[in-house]
């Protein structure tokens, strides 16, 4: 499903060239549960951003469902992101002026889905993360765990096959962190490919497949 071949990514910082990803080869199948771990600055976030199509590799091939992603234009990339990839962030990234329901609705708004259909799906999504009674609360009226659940509902609203999580528990206490992990693992059991970056070894060990990155290189 995801196939990365000889991926390199360089960054120019001042007059120094940083080799963030160094010849990454990775093949991920549908329904896998993968954790990516490694020290700060090792390139884990860059790898996740490349998989999420938010960042373009400097060289190498990336095939998603057999399609060469590196050849797509901006509109096509946006469409692929919208339909195939859900993203959960460490800092939640909800839009503060929107209610929980409106935040969850956002990807469908971008996709141009009709209002009625959206409301129906938002109600279901809120139910699946146990936040039916928080629909009209704004992010600043929600706890950290609730906010991240809204973010997960938003990530899954378009029914993507791939869910990417960049330290989803990094800003949560251990109890709500565990809730979030359970929620994500539940989705994984429904055949969603889950790729998660984490600092927390205990969480990382739960994944079926663990990838370690050091200095831009994978070492299994």
């Amino acid at each position, binding site marked *: 499903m995801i196939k990365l071949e000889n991926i390199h990514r360089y960054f120019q910082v001042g007059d120094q060239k940083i080799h963030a990803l160094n010849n990454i080869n990775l093949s991920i199948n549908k329904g896998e549960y993968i954790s990516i771990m490694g020290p700060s600055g090792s390139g884990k976030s860059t790898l996740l951003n490349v998989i999420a199509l938010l*960042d373009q590799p400097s060289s190498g091939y990336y095939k998603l469902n057999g399609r060469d992603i590196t050849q797509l234009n*901006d509109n096509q990339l*946006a469409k692929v992101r919208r339909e195939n990839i859900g993203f959960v962030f460490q800092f939640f*990234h909800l839009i503060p002026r929107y209610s929980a329901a409106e935040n969850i609705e956002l990807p469908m*708004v*971008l996709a141009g889905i009709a209002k009625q259909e959206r409301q129906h799906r938002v109600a279901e999504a809120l139910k699946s993360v146990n936040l039916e009674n928080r629909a009209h609360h704004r992010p600043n009226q929600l706890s950290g765990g609730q906010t991240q659940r809204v973010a997960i509902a938003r990530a899954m609203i378009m029914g993507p096959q791939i869910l990417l999580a960049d330290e989803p528990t990094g800003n949560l206490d251990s109890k709500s962190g565990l809730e979030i992990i359970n929620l994500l693992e539940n989705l994984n059991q429904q055949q969603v490919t889950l790729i998660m970056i984490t600092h927390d070894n205990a969480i990382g060990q739960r994944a079926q497949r663990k990838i370690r990155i050091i200095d831009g290189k994978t070492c299994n």
Partner: protein
Amino acid sequence: MTFNDTLSHSFSAIKTQPVRVILIVLAMSIGIASVTVLTALGESTRRYIINEFEALGSHLIIVLPGRSETTGGQPPMFGETPRDLTLDDAVALARNRHIVAIAPINIGAAPVSTRGLERESTIIGSTAALRQVRHLNISQGRFLPPSEINKAQAICVIGQTIKNELFPQQNVLGQWLRINDHRFRVIGVLASEGQSIGVDFDDMVIIPVASAQALFNSHSLFRILIEAKSTQAMYKAVDEITEIIKLRHDGEDDVTLITQDSVVNTFDEILTALTFTVSSIASISLAVAGILVMNVMWVSVSQRTAEIGLLKALGASKQHILWLFLTEAALLSIAGGISGLALGKVVLLVLQTSYPAFPFYLPNWAIYAALGVSLITALIFGVLPARKAANLNPVIALSKR
């Protein structure tokens, strides 16, 4: 992303910054209001002056002694020709079949007095046809009667001001009036006409043209006013008048003919240009408002960098982002445009109440132009910030909090 969703997303973003919105809308509306008010002033002036000229009479031809090669300028006030325009010329022209009425005019200033009251007034010498040519109305008595053109009669028709000043609260008909050392009997009083292109008919005494020639001891005419049968006839009449004058003046057409429509057209052109110039100057304030829109949009983009990154991560394309920010700029400007129009209308209303005689008029095209210009300003000045937003790198944008 549907149009409605784009609109509501931009609108919700605007709502978070009420003070900023009020300021930018204020700036925009001052620009729009000044353009609409000045356009309305120019357009109203144009209409006012055109109406004045059209009120002069329909199919009017003015014959002036002397030849002026330019058109549209000030007609020569005094003949610069060796050959005067005479009553005989007027008689000859009157036979033309395209002409309905012909009024020779002799004009002068003289002291007008009665029983110790004296006033310096304008004296017009003319014939009965003047009433038809200038559409004059009579409030009392009658106008000069039709008679032989060269017959001097001691009768006069006076304006309202003369009546009020020289004959306060008394019957004026049949009274004697002294002009210089000639006596004239008042046979009629003009209805109040107000000013008509600088000619105050209220402060005027009209006497038969032959009497005026005797009074001022002059045989030349100031001008001849001619009313043609129709617009078509007017153009034919102009040609034939030239021919007749040429025959009578030793082969030289030493008169200037002004048709009413040429005067109207000239003024129309001048005043349209004036309106355009004044509006253009006012539109500088629109450019300033546009730059303010741009400034506000820059701030908006940099404040919402993380949101832009998020939208991109959720599957927004560059076009989506571009349109979101352009819509935001457009909403601000249209709000400014509408409140500017309202402000302009209020100013015009105040002006109208202060000067009820002057017909203030805001043409429809100015309304559409104002809204159109505000929208275009927004799009022009919104493009750069919107492009900046659209081209943000999502990874870097997301890392901003």
